[in-house]
């Protein structure tokens, strides 16, 4: 029943009526899908209203996302392979941009480094690795650097605007780190940590404006800005999902540590937050995003709705993330804490160098599941009027040409989600299996 329905020669139709005519002409008045709508609107379901000529940007963003995730997700890939992939993606992307003199140079540079990396990959695979290690052969930088850069690159690529805003935001961390480095010997760790946070805060709140202004004056580099309302479809779901998960990770870690802490107030604040968020449906949080968040902010602030949704989704995800990380922490034997203590590492160093790397690794399957859940839940934003794939499906049906189309759209959207989440869940299962064997 489903199969004959879906095999239907309506790919080229421009409206539902045209579909009906085509089907009528082949003698199938009833039954028969109208695929014209997918043909015409598939890119909209993927990108929403993102300007067509700029769609290479989100595409590149998500390719790069994959590259940025590699060092975290697949630790069997060598550094060289990872950098090779990155350059490959960039090289491919450089063809999507129209040729200018600058682009030609970029292409040549990328091409050359591609060739060099490919050569070294082949070479290292052939030569004895142990030999190289003994000789102290230079390793490429840790690909996690790119992951860190990506955190700032992604919003810039998606939303565009001056390059100096993400750079300035990143510099805030640098300022904080420098402050910490300089102050730690003088003021001690905890005090300098607080001061570093303050320094970074000062930078972000006060100095970032003048800095970007200045740099924009000096070197106005930037991409065409794209308003977030133009985000839609899968792009919207992915953006909300990825940004919220990434942002919720640090928050979740803090909450998890808070929940495990023996400081009663800190513990109860964390528990209260986590249980509150987990106790209410996401849709109520989205109502808060759409109806209340601006009321909570100082008069005059106006986050756009997508940013508000991302904020609430982040809070939502962080509660779940906290539980995942807590599970990871619980799985670590106490001996690890004791060994770190005995070596003289303080609390934060022990967390950063010993505990978290292990706990997070154990938590990756849980994080992936949280992401899958969140990604699926992003469809709820259609209820507050955002045009995610489901929201778009009703917008498309509001078009006179397609008024009345149901199954084709739902089917297509379901398929898209299925592909994404199925692959991710398979990956997380694979990880779980590997973690199990790793441990025994």
């Amino acid at each position, binding site marked *: 029943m489903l199969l004959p329905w879906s095999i239907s020669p309506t790919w080229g139709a421009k409206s539902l009526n045209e579909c009906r005519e085509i089907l009528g002409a082949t003698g199938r008045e009833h039954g028969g899908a109208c695929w014209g709508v997918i043909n015409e609107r598939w890119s909209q379901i993927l990108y929403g209203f993102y300007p*067509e000529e700029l769609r290479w940007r989100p595409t590149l963003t998500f390719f790069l996302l994959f590259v940025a995730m590699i060092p975290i997700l697949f630790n069997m890939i060598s550094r060289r392979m990872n950098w090779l992939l990155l350059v490959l993606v960039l090289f491919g992307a450089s063809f999507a941009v129209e040729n200018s003199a600058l682009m030609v140079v970029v292409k040549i540079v990328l091409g050359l480094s591609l060739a060099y990396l490919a050569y070294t990959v082949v070479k290292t695979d052939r030569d004895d690795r142990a030999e190289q290690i003994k000789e102290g052969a230079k390793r490429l930088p840790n690909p996690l650097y790119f992951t860190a850069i990506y955190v700032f690159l992604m919003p810039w690529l998606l939303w565009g605007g001056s390059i100096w805003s993400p750079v300035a935001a990143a510099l805030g961390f640098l300022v904080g780190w420098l402050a910490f480095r300089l102050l730690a010997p003088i003021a001690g760790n905890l005090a300098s940590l607080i001061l570093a946070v303050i320094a970074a805060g000062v930078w972000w709140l006060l100095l970032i404006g003048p800095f970007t202004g200045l740099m924009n004056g000096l070197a106005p580099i930037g991409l065409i800005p794209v308003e977030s309302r133009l985000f839609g479809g899968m792009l919207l779901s992915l953006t909300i999902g990825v940004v919220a998960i990434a942002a919720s990770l640090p928050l979740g870690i803090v909450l998890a540590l808070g929940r495990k802490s023996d400081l009663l107030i800190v513990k109860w604040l964390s528990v209260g937050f986590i249980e509150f968020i987990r106790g209410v449906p996401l849709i109520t949080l989205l109502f808060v995003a759409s109806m209340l968040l601006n009321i909570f902010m100082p008069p005059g602030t106006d986050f756009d709705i997508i940013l508000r949704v991302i904020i609430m989704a982040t809070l939502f995800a962080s509660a779940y993330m906290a539980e995942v990380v807590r599970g990871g922490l619980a799985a670590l034997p106490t001996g690890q804490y004791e060994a770190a203590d005995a070596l003289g590492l303080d609390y934060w160093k022990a967390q950063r160098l010993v505990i978290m790397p292990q706990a997070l690794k154990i938590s990756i399957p849980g994080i992936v599941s949280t992401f899958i859940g969140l990604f699926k839940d992003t469809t709820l934003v259609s209820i507050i009027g955002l045009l995610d794939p489901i929201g778009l499906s009703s*917008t498309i049906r509001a078009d006179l040409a397609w008024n009345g189309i149901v199954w084709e759209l739902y089917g297509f959207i379901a398929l898209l989600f299925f592909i994404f989440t199925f692959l991710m869940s398979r990956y997380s299962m694979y990880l779980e299996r590997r973690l199990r064997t790793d441990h025994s």
Partner: protein
Amino acid sequence: ATLDDVKARGTLNCGVSTGLPGFSSADESGHWEGFDVAVCRAVAAAVLGDPEAVEFVPTTGKTRFTALASGEIDLLARNTTWTLSRDVDLKFEFVGVNYYDGQGFLVPKELGVTSAKELDGATVCIQTGTTTELNLADFFRANNISYEPVPIETNTEARQQYIAGACDAYTTDASGLAASRATFEDPTAHVILPEIISKEPLGPLVRHGDNAWGDIARWTLNALIAAEEYGITSTNIDEMLAGTDNPEINRILGTEGNLGEMLGLDADWAVRAIKAGGNYGEIFAKNIGEDTTIGLARGLNAQWKDGGILYSMPFR
């Protein structure tokens, strides 16, 4: 002030329906069209000089008021009924009426129903978050008959249920009914019942408290209506700019007087607004008029001179 914000931003944030055929819908490249959309474009043209300088924010019945109240949008042009409580209690300012509507019922012909009073026991589809559900409750209570409400979020879903026979009747503003009926496979198999159970003056609205901005929106709408009254169309407007012997036209077009300046705009604000999509009549005809698939008659929305109640305040 909103005007400064809009100018600084360079775009007008305009709330529209997520999708209502003829009133607002987006095509595959994300270009918005429709009767409500045209109001946004006219205001954008008047204020910013570019009818394309609009960010359309799709809103649902639920989210529209918060979007406006929170400043996320500058203007809400989404079939919204002007009522006292919305004006006073929700703190909004309706700048006029761009469509005089009333709530009606759509039923399949084969039911043989000729009056809404015969709908005792019927299942009625209704969009939530609107005045319609209150009207509906009032109507059935007043006539002491029962009904089964089926609340639905969007027009497209309501349509789906109605067509499949999951509701006996669909109630919403008559314009919406006509618009929906127009897209049915067989529009003639459905009738709109004669009872119009409410007055639904639909119009654009802005927040309370920024009267200058409200004035701009109000007078842009008036300019569109007046333009039709005085025969200014997007095609002949350039000739008329050369000067006419009707001082009111000249004042509208800014060739006489300083109305634009009073509004805080330049002299040919109205010219741009009219050029954006034509005068009221042109907009109506192009989006929902009888020649479109929606096929609405002017009815109440004809100019007062033609027997309707459309009446622009004088430009003076």
